[in-house]
C-alpha cells in the first residue's frame, strides 16, 4: 500500500534484483535502506540493525525475516519488529512498488533535501 504524499525513489530495475537478492540504497537525506526480494515479494527496511552497527543486507533471509549477521537478532521484514534480544527496537519499514519494471521506494521525505 502506498501512502499519499510520499516521494518515489527509483532503486533499480527489477530484473537486476532476482529473488534471494538484496540491494542497499541511500536516498538523499535518508539512512541506508535495503530492499529484499524474497519469495514472498519485495520488502524495504532501514539497513542498519537497531542493536548495533551491522548492515542487515549482510544478514540471512529466511521467509519473511532477516537475521542480523552480528548477534542474530531476527527482524520481521514486513513489520521491522525484532523477535528477541539483543535488539529491542523495530527497524523502520518502507513501502515498495514496481512501476514499469522499476523498483520504487516510497517514504515521507522530511523537508527539501536539495
Amino acid at each position, binding site marked *: 500500500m502506498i501512502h499519499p504524499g510520499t516521494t518515489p525513489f527509483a532503486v533499480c530495475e527489477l530484473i537486476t534484483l532476482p529473488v534471494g537478492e538484496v540491494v542497499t540504497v541511500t536516498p538523499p537525506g535518508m539512512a541506508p535502506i535495503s530492499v529484499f526480494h524474497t519469495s514472498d515479494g519485495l520488502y524495504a527496511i532501514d539497513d542498519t540493525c537497531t542493536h*548495533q552497527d*551491522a*548492515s542487515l*543486507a*549482510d*544478514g*540471512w533471509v529466511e521467509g519473511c525475516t532477516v*537475521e542480523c*549477521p*552480528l*548477534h*542474530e537478532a531476527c527482524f520481521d521484514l514486513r513489520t521491522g519488529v525484532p523477535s*528477541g*534480544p*539483543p535488539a*529491542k*527496537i523495530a527497524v523502520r519499514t518502507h513501502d515498495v512498488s514496481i512501476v514499469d519494471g522499476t523498483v520504487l521506494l516510497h517514504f515521507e521525505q522530511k523537508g527539501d533535501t536539495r
Partner: protein
Amino acid sequence: MNTVPNSIVVLGASLAGLSAVRALREKGYTGRLVVAGSETSLPYDRPPLSKEFLTGDVTDEDLLLMNSDDDTLDVEWRMNSTATGLIRSPDGLHRVTFDDGSHLDADAVVVATGARARTLPGHFGLAGVHTLRSVDDARALRESLSRAQNLVIVGAGFIGAEVASSAAGMSLQVTVVEASPTPLAGPLGIELGAICAGQHAVHGVRLLTGAVVDALLGDDAVEAVRLSDGTVLPADVVVVGIGAVPNVEWAGGSELMIDDGFLTDSSCRTNLPGVYAIGDCARTFDEAHQVHHRSEHWSNAVTQAATVADTIMATPSGPAAIPYFWSHQYGKMLQFAGTRHSTDEVRFVDGDPGTGTFVATYDRDGDTVGVFAMNNPRLFTRYKKQLARSRA
C-alpha cells in the same frame, strides 16, 4: 510421561533466564513463572561491558535486555534473591531455598545461574584490582581507568583482549600478560589466535606471552605486577581476565550432578526429573560429538533457553544450533562458528589476514567444520548457515 508443569521457577535473571521465560510463553506455557536472581537490576546484556560500556559509548539503559513487549510475560521477578539450595518439598515438589530464609516450591526448576570471573588466588582486597562480569564490576573498572596511567591485564583471552582494546583509546599504558605462548589458541587455534593477538601491537598495547604472574605488589592499592621471571610491571589498575567458573556451589547439597557445571542431556535435563540447566552454568551433552560441553557464549544461552522450553512443553525442537560467538576488538568484528580440533586444517577462503578482513575455515577429513571471520559478517553468515545445513 511428560505433563506440563503448573509452576516453574527460573534461577538466574540474566540472558538465559529471561530467554527461557520468553520461550516458554511463546510456546504456550500458561502456568506460574517466577524468576529469581542475585543481582538487583533486571536482566542486562554482558558483552558490551568489556566493550562499548567501558568506553562510554553504551549507557546503563542500553544494556537492559527487556522491552515493553516483556510486560506481557506475566512473570514474577524476585531480584536480589540468591538461591542457597534445592531440596524436595514435603508434597513432592522442588523447593528452592533463598539467602533470606524464604523458599519457593515449584513443579519444575530451570537453573540459569551463569558463571563468575575466576580470580587470581591469594590477592584479595588490593584496590585497583578488578575482574569483569557484572555491570557493577564494569562501573568500578571504568572509574579506575579514568584515573589510571598503567593498566596491566592478566590474561589475553576474549575479555582481556576486549578490555585492552577498549583501554587502548584512553591514553593509558596498556600491557597484557598471557601465560600461554599464543593467546586465544584454545578457541581459535594457534594460527588464528596469533593473527588476532597481532592486533595488540598494532594499537600500541604491549603483549607479553609465556608470562606468569607471581605477585601483585602494593599495600592498599596495587602498584605493580611481578612476573615469575622477576619482571616488575608498574600498574595502578589490574584486570584479571583468566576465565570464568560456573555458579554451582549453591546447589552443593542437592542431588544434582555437578562437574564443572550442572550436567545435562542434550535436551537440558539434569539428573533430577523436572530440573533443567541452561547457559553458562550448564555442561550439556553434545550429541554430535558425544561429549559434555560447557559453553560460555551469548548465543548458547539463547538457544538453550529455546531448547529447555521445548523440552518442558514437549514440543519438537529444531536441529541443534551451530555453536557461535563473536568478539569485538580494535574496531574489528571477530566471529567464529562450528567446532575446532587442534588437528583441523585452517584454510583462508577470502581476504587476507594481513589486511584484517578475511574468512578462514577449519577443515577436518575433507569437511568444513568451523569458520572464522574478521570483519566479513556477510560471508561468515553464509558459511555459518552452510555448516548448519550440513549438520542437519
